[in-house]
């Protein structure tokens, strides 16, 4: 069976500090985990999360700063709102809501971040790959 594909959308500040520190200390990440680094989770909208699934992600995790740590103000709150809305759309589409999660981290929580991603990877692996088109491809592979 094809391995599942996991996408992390990571805020440049606290979570990426964790991710970077984890890499420096040699903590491994799951091999099927891909990371997109953005300046703030508030930059991510409903469409971008949906598009990750459209392009073949089997699970998406938003790695965010703590609400009070946001460099710009409302970033994590925008994240919570978008995750809530997209989860409702995923439910309509019959896609398990557990495939989209958000987690917040302080800048010192590198171990917690790595553990969270591993836990998520195990959960998505248990759910298996999302149903793809009849030719086995994700709905879309190019812009």
């Amino acid at each position, binding site marked *: 069976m094809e391995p599942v594909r996991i996408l992390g959308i990571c805020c440049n500040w606290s979570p990426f500090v964790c991710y970077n520190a984890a890499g420096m200390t040699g903590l491994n990440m799951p091999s099927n985990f891909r990371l997109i680094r953005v300046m703030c989770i508030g930059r991510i*909208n409903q469409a971008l999360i*949906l*598009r990750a699934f459209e392009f073949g992600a089997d699970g998406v995790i938003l790695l965010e700063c703590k609400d009070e740590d946001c460099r710009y103000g409302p970033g994590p709150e925008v994240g919570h709102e978008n995750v809530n*809305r997209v989860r409702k759309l995923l439910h309509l589409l*019959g896609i398990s809501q557990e495939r989209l999660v958000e987690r917040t981290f302080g800048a010192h929580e590198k171990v917690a971040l790595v553990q969270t991603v591993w836990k998520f990877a195990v959960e998505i692996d248990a759910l298996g790959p999302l149903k793809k088109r009849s030719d086995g491809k994700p709905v879309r592979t190019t*812009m």
Partner: protein
Amino acid sequence: MNDPRIDQMIVDMSLYQCLECGKCTASCPRRLSGKEYSPRLLAHKVIAEREDEAYIENSVWECLTCGMCRERCPSGVDFNRFILEMRAMLAETKGLKGYRAHDGAIHSWMRMMTTPGLKQNRLDWVDSDIQVARSGEVAFFAGCAPYFDVFFAGIEVDTISIAKDSIRLLNFLDIKPVLLPDERCCGHDLLWSGDVENFEALCRLNFKTFKDAGIREIIVSCPECYQVLSEHMPGIVSGFDIKVTLLIDLLQQELKKGGLAFRPLKRKATFQDPCRLVRMLDRSSGPRELLGLVPEMTFVEMENSGRGALCCGNCGFINCDAYSKQIQVARLKEAKATGADLLITACPKCMIHLTCTIRDRMRHGKKIKMEIRDLASVLADGIEYSG
């Protein structure tokens, strides 16, 4: 641009018949809202200056497809079909273009619905207010209503109530429709944004869903879904043998038989004609006839109404921009100028686009603020059995 298919389109869509009279451009809502946009010049460039690729491509994607140019053209140039086929061709050769509103979220979920084994949870809203059947030959097509309801919750557009109210009306006609748990979007917005491959996939999957459920007739309230199911699907799915009925047509026909009436509604109302319903499907009299049955309601027409109605500003969720907003403001001002306090429409898209502008804090506030309701909801709230 050397594609021979363009030469064929020029012939098929009667572009050579263009007189360059300019009525199309003079009535184009894009042009009237100040945008440098000209259907006349597009026709000219396609015929005579095809090397100006940038102009042609931009124009093809910029069109709102409201059909006003085709309506006004004295030569019968079929602009709508020209834009539709050009978009399909350009998307195939150069990729999908056009700015997709809401960053393409709507088109994304429509494409995700092309997954064959999809098991949706699209009927959570069904409750005891409506009577539906588990099986039968008549289905009601709710389309994207459950999805829009979630996506546009932020602007408080309630598209589920349109579906519910349509079914309440059907119940009064003694019809308990089947609701299909795995019907998909009709694909209208994918078709008009050039994504023919996924549009056709949706058509085939929907047809299979209808057939597997033993459906022989589909009742539709949305004009876009109706147009796709009745006019486009038979061309894509061979052996398409399902009767497609527009709720407005059915109501007109059934209410004539008597036995049903409406409670009085003391409101002054006007009607926003949806482009698909009125210009493309020629149903301008239906909604007016139905509203005429509501006692004590004063019905007033806007300055531009019926087949000459102004566009709601956007179609297929592509290229919504400041000019779209201007069209919407102009339309809402026309509605306000009638003195009406209720704007009735018959397409969820008109409702979404106009509500979006009303709720825009940077816009004209009270000057354009108005209650918008769907025709099905207005009728369902007042319908009753009569002697």
